[in-house]
């Protein structure tokens, strides 16, 4: 009981914490600490919104219809993919200007837009927060009458996810910039691919897209989401034990297109043209 609740907490927590920790690590490493003050309001707003929605859903009778829940979850996931992808390439571009910076050329034009940082952290947390909040309220309510075990397990799981995210952050900070950039970038590509697949699956469940029953594979026996490794995989990459063909195609297509683009050796042009291009936009 405790264990399975903890796994859910871990998984939901990781999904939210992963992107935020990479964003924070990136800002710290590139000496943009001043942008950090935009991360926490985003996280805070997402948590508040999630808690509020969770409370409303639990304590009032108002309820989103199933299609709307899935449509909302699916749409937010796809918006999140757009954001994470933008983040990957923004990091790539910005890290180049950092190299120039080290050579003594400060580049303010490429400074991080506060709104972007705020919204990205909001989205990363808010996307899973809604679902988590409902779960949390139900755990609290049940715990009062029944057992506190699920609640403890859930809290342990979330705590573990925060610790994991923190370790990831620490580890990431230890790498040099080039290495950090490559490792987290590749990680984020897979994260975004998973989120894309997850979002499409939601839209299929809402019957907004067809093919919910057409499975590419069903690994629920060999690699169940309810195992600790399955929960980790789901938390980090949005692994799904039952993956539809559409989901699989989207995942592969995303990785095949974005990963090479990301790993493509960068041209030795760097700061000045990049800055010029940015300010022209």
């Amino acid at each position, binding site marked *: 009981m405790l264990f399975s609740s903890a796994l*859910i907490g871990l998984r939901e927590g990781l999904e939210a914490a992963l992107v935020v920790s990479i964003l924070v690590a990136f800002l710290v490493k590139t000496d943009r600490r001043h942008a950090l003050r935009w991360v926490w309001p985003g996280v805070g707003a997402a948590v508040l919104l999630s808690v509020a929605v969770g409370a409303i859903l639990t304590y009032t009778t108002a309820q989103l219809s199933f299609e709307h829940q899935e449509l909302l979850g699916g749409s937010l996931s796809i918006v999140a993919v757009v*954001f994470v992808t933008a983040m990957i390439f923004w990091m790539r571009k910005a890290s180049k200007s950092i190299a120039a910076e080290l050579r003594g050329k400060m580049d303010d034009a490429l400074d991080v837009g506060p709104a972007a940082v705020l919204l990205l952290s909001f989205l990363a947390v808010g996307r899973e927060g809604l679902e988590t909040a409902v779960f949390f309220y139900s755990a609290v309510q*049940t715990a009062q009458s029944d057992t506190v075990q699920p609640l403890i397990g859930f809290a342990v799981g979330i705590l573990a996810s925060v610790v994991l995210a923190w370790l990831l952050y620490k580890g990431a900070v230890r790498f040099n910039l080039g290495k950090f950039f490559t490792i987290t970038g590749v990680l984020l590509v897979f994260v975004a691919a998973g989120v894309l697949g997850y979002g499409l699956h939601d839209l299929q469940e809402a019957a907004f897209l067809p093919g*919910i029953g057409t499975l590419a594979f069903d690994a629920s026996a060999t690699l169940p989401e309810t195992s600790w490794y399955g929960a980790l995989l789901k938390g980090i990459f949005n692994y799904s034990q039952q993956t539809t063909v559409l989901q699989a195609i989207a995942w592969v297509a995303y990785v095949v297109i974005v990963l090479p683009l990301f790993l493509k050796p960068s041209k030795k042009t760097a700061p000045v043209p990049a800055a010029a291009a940015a300010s022209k936009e």
Partner: protein
Amino acid sequence: MTVRKTPSLAVLAGAAVLVTLAACDGKSDTAGATADGGPIKVSASDTACEVSATTAGAGNVTFEITNKGTKVTEFYLYAEGDRIMGEVENIAPGLNRRLIVEVADAGKYQTACKPGMAGAGIRGDFTVTGGVAKQNDANAQKAQATKSYADYIANNTAALEEETAKFAGLVKTGKVDEAKAAYARTRVYYERIEPVAEKFGDLDPAIDVREADLEPGQKFTGFHRLEKDLFVSGPQADTPQIADKLLTDVKDLVAKSKTLELTALDLANGAKGLLDEVATGKITGEEETFSHTDLWDFQANLDGSKGAITSLRPILQAKDAALTSTLDKEFANVQGLLDKQRVGDGFKLYTDLSQDQVKEFASAVDALSEPLSKVAEVVSK
């Protein structure tokens, strides 16, 4: 900063989706646990899925799922073809979760618990009854009703034009016996759609006026004039012209009926109007004074009334199920009496009915007329 423009727009769009979805669902405040006597309890374990009730009325159905097993579970309600009506995921062992599903249509559904969140799950049959339509569908239902009735009208006007052409042909070629046989049969299509015909000022009198009702100066034309010529006085010099004019008027009516926009209230009033026609014309034997084929018209009026009520049925069923069943019963009663008077593919002549039989018809029509008069009010609610 300019670099960030595009993504923030995307998020604004996302937020807009969120707000819109939340807003349009605000209406479902009535979604309550109290729908149909409290939530349906689902007791899920690793090997079983016990559902406390396997039927529910259409509308909001509430399940309360308790996971008594050791694995994380999910609960689903499926419609036919495994279409997901609602789901709760991630129910940890020891927890309760509530699921409220809006089921608008009656039919066969399936419940499923999925221990370990894997596979097709432990299925159970679930039946939804009633089919109470969503409140906000009222206008769509009315539109559907008028469309369905428009189809009924179109079928009958097409037949009317065809049969009138044949009938007029027989009259003009002097085939009196054949024309007499065709007379009542042709009028059936007219009598079924009489409320529609009455919408076109002069056409209804031109086609269907009775000799007794003629206004001073009004020419005696239409079906009843030909009825008199065929059954009583024999063909007159202007009989062929009258037949031609009847056909022209009918064609005119058919063309005009295609442009007619009826409301649900028109249907309700029409259904009642047709029964009034029966009471004032057919039961008294006044309509077909020369041919005495009143029972054919009677049947046709009844058909037309039933046609309008059939189109309104989903609305009536949702708003007043008791009235609907009363109507069904009384329609069947009148039909039963009519069936007793059938001869071949037609009916006994009015003049062959006994006084008691006429009285029996009159009281059956009154009994039907009473609930029919309530339909308009129910529909307009």
